[in-house]
């Protein structure tokens, strides 16, 4: 054991909550796929979770200050990986997002998210003024802007969007001035129509579909409508595990992944959703508490970076499932099936644990 840290310093509540969410996810993956050719995929998910736990533990042992010292190098690796994926990446579903690493398809943007959390934490912790200056803001925007542009080129709008709240939360905690915040909001408001112009056709379709889903129920609005039907028809107690016709008969798209909460809502109803969302709330609040108790600003920024990313994932995914937001392809952390996404969350939680166990270190 490293000096000054002990097994008791780990956040066991956080870990318990995390595993509870994973458990619900595995259960629903099993239920949603058991009667189809996809049956058995929940065991893969368990394997990812196991691997994630190991990686989390390993990452927590490596002092986060040491990691943050390597921020420039990590940033360089991230940029190279993003360029590599564009050049030689494996194309799937019309987008280049995967790189082969040790025979496994790795979603590069997940790794990049992790690196950007570290890079931004270092950046903001080095701002020593009470209030965040305009120059610092521009620098932060530049640091995030390059990888964001590269991710947009894949194209992966969802992951690119995640970087925005990451900067926003960081800037907010670094002392963003209200007048600046207001100015950015106004600027963003102006940029939205311009940005829409640069969207890919399928992305535009998703936006229009979101705004008017009933116009084309079998086309692009189909996914949202079917998801809402699944959720709504679940009622309070749900139709029972394995009995959700909407997900079992394939009306709900990717019911084991992005739309897993729709499948869950259909099969175990509002009661199940209530428990799941409370678990997420507890997880996020626990993260904030860890930030509040961090040893230094660097640790606090690191934890809040993770909080921002996970919170944004939960918000966008759940809002999509109930038709509050368009389809973006952002998975639900810890529940949706997927190796890269699961490993990312555990590595991110590894950073949090890292900060946690060093909170009393001088």
């Amino acid at each position: 054991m490293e000096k000054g840290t002990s097994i008791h310093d780990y956040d066991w509540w956080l870990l318990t909550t995390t595993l509870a969410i994973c458990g619900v996810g595995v259960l629903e993956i099993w239920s949603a796929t058991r009667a189809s050719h996809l049956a058995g995929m929940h065991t893969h998910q368990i394997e990812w979770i196991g691997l994630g736990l190991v990686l989390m533990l390993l990452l927590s042992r490596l002092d986060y200050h040491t990691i943050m010292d390597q921020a420039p190098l990590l940033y360089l690796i991230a940029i190279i990986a993003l360029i590599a994926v564009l050049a030689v990446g494996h194309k799937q579903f019309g987008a280049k997002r995967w790189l082969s690493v040790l025979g496994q398809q790795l979603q590069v943007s997940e790794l990049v998210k992790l690196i950007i959390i570290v890079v931004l934490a270092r950046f903001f912790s080095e701002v020593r003024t009470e209030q965040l200056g305009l120059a610092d803001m521009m620098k932060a925007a530049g640091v995030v802007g390059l990888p964001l542009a590269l991710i947009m080129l894949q194209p992966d709008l969802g992951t690119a969007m995640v970087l925005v709240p990451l900067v926003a939360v960081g800037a907010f905690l670094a002392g963003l001035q209200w007048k600046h915040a207001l100015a950015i909001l106004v600027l963003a408001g102006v940029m939205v129509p311009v940005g829409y112009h640069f969207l890919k056709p399928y992305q535009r379709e998703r936006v229009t579909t979101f705004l008017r889903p009933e116009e084309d129920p079998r086309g692009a609005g189909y996914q949202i409508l079917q998801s809402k039907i699944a959720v709504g028809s679940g009622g309070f107690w749900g139709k029972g595990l394995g009995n959700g016709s909407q997900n079992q008969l394939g009306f709900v798209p990717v019911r084991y992944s992005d739309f897993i909460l729709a499948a869950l809502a259909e099969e175990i109803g509002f009661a199940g959703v209530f428990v799941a969302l409370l678990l997420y709330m507890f997880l996020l609040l626990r993260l904030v508490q860890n930030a509040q108790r961090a040893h230094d600003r660097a640790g606090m920024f690191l934890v809040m970076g993770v909080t921002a990313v996970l919170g944004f994932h939960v918000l966008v995914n759940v809002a999509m499932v109930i038709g509050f937001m368009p389809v973006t392809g952002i998975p639900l952390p810890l529940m949706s099936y997927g190796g890269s996404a699961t490993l990312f969350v555990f590595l991110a939680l590894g950073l949090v644990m890292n900060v946690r166990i060093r909170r009393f270190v001088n």
Partner: protein
Amino acid sequence: MNDKRLPQERLAVTSYVIVGMILLLLSGFWKLQIIDSDKYAQMAERNRVRSIPIIAPRGTMLDREGRVLVDNYPSFSVLLLRDSPSQVDKLLPQIADGLGMTLDDIKQEIEAANAMPKFQPIIIKPQASPSDIAFIESHRADIPVLEMLMVHRRRYPHGDMLANAVGYVGEVSAEQVEASDSKLKPGDIVGKAGLERQYNGTLMGTDGMRRVIVNSIGKEVGRLEQQEAIPGKPIQLTIDYDLQNIADTYMANKEGAVVAMDGRTGEILAMVSRPTFNPNDFAIRIPSAEWQALNSDDRTPLLNRAIQGQLAPGSVFKIVMSTAMLESKDLPENFTAFCPGHATFYGRTFHCWRPEGHGTVDLHKAIVDSCDVFFYTIGQRLGIDKIHEYATGLGLGRRTGVDLPSEEAGLIPSEEWVQRVYHHKWYAGETISVAIGQGAVTVTPIQLARMIAAVSNGGTLVQPHLLKNLTPKPDRFPLADDTVEQVTQGMYGVINEGGTGSSLKLQNIEFSGKSGTAQLMSYEAGSHMGKKGKETNGWFVGYAPRRNPEIVVAAVIQGSSEHGGTTAGPVVRDLVKAYYEKKNGLTPQQYTAKNEPGSVPRASGNDPSLDPPH
């Protein structure tokens, strides 16, 4: 020890944001899962379950001996499932191509069904050909919106035989659906005319429903409980196929009507109306051009002349006059008139059909020879209202109550009628024409059959009917036995004492009757229209035996220039003869082979060994 420079306030704000976010999301679930739950549950059910109707076959129609007159044959229609309009739109060109239809045709079908709920499939092609079936089967995976529907198509195996009485079926109209108290739904096949319409409630079954579970690409993955179709009930008719066949054969290429009826019960044994139509043409879906043609045809093939043809009865009306004369006692029983071939009433000369005259005639001779002058005289003595009273009493000018839709009443003029319709007084001269069944008088063939039966049975007006197990409600217009005896003796004489129907004589059968030849228009009008000679309606109403007839046949041949006894008489005779032959146990082959007049008829009771046990 916490770093003093940590922005604790702003961190606290993020906590509140997190709680707010979760509450917002939960409210979204509350709305969907608690408030709108029923709506989405229905939508999920509609996604999951595909309902395909199971069409109930219509009941068949049998003749009185159980021979099939109308039945069904299995066939396939093409169903379009419309629950996903955009998918349907995308597939339409492919569907049109595969089914050999134009895109516009299909769009029209879809348009027509716009008011129906989207989850109800519609028929886009009523009659699927083998290649259509092959197309649908081979494209199950990529065109999941098509489905085959087994239907029971109406079949009229004897073509146009009995068509006007049987009627036809067709797709229910929007008005009918509305009036049906949701018993009918768009696309249902219902009886549109004749017996098909009259007994639609019995004939039509209740469609069932096959409910299957489908996945998101429309593939069937399971079955739910099936609601079986309840087939319609068959009905047995009073029609005798053999007699119908005889009447039908005789009437081929003629214009007119024949109705044969059991004089005791009102059971209709045969009913023909010509020209006619083939109801099989309606069984699929009649092309609108064909429908237009049938409807606008001057020869009115859709009209059932036996119950809807309102024609001048001509001399058959003299039976009403004779009955009125005897019953009213306004004239002495042995009243005679002298016929020089014409007579003058109210300053106008009326001709007898026999220019050389009949000499002195009494009632019997007047009926046998159909002397017009005798009946002119009686008509003048009785007056129009007396004539109206007896004609109406004997069922003319009012519906017989036959179990067919749209029966016509005909018209028996009266002083009241002329006042009401024409607002002037009755011209006494008109009575003279009415007395020989001309002028404003119109009747239907079925009314004449019923009237003759009533006169010969003492005044029982049967309810003519086609449904075997209908309990008829007869009407009474009591006649004195002496009246019945005198009038029926006259009608017996028409055939058996050298009267107007003497060529129709049947051995050993008390075949009696009365001919009529009604002028359609005057000589002058006829020549104006370039017609040669007289256009007439030739009537013959015959029956047997003389009193309490078992069979009464009324026949009318329209547009012939010949005498009723010659044009209409033979079919009446043939039917009466066939009736007795059948009654005496001869098989249809035997008597149809011996169709020539004068062959050996057998009156009932003549040879007990030939009588079938009753």
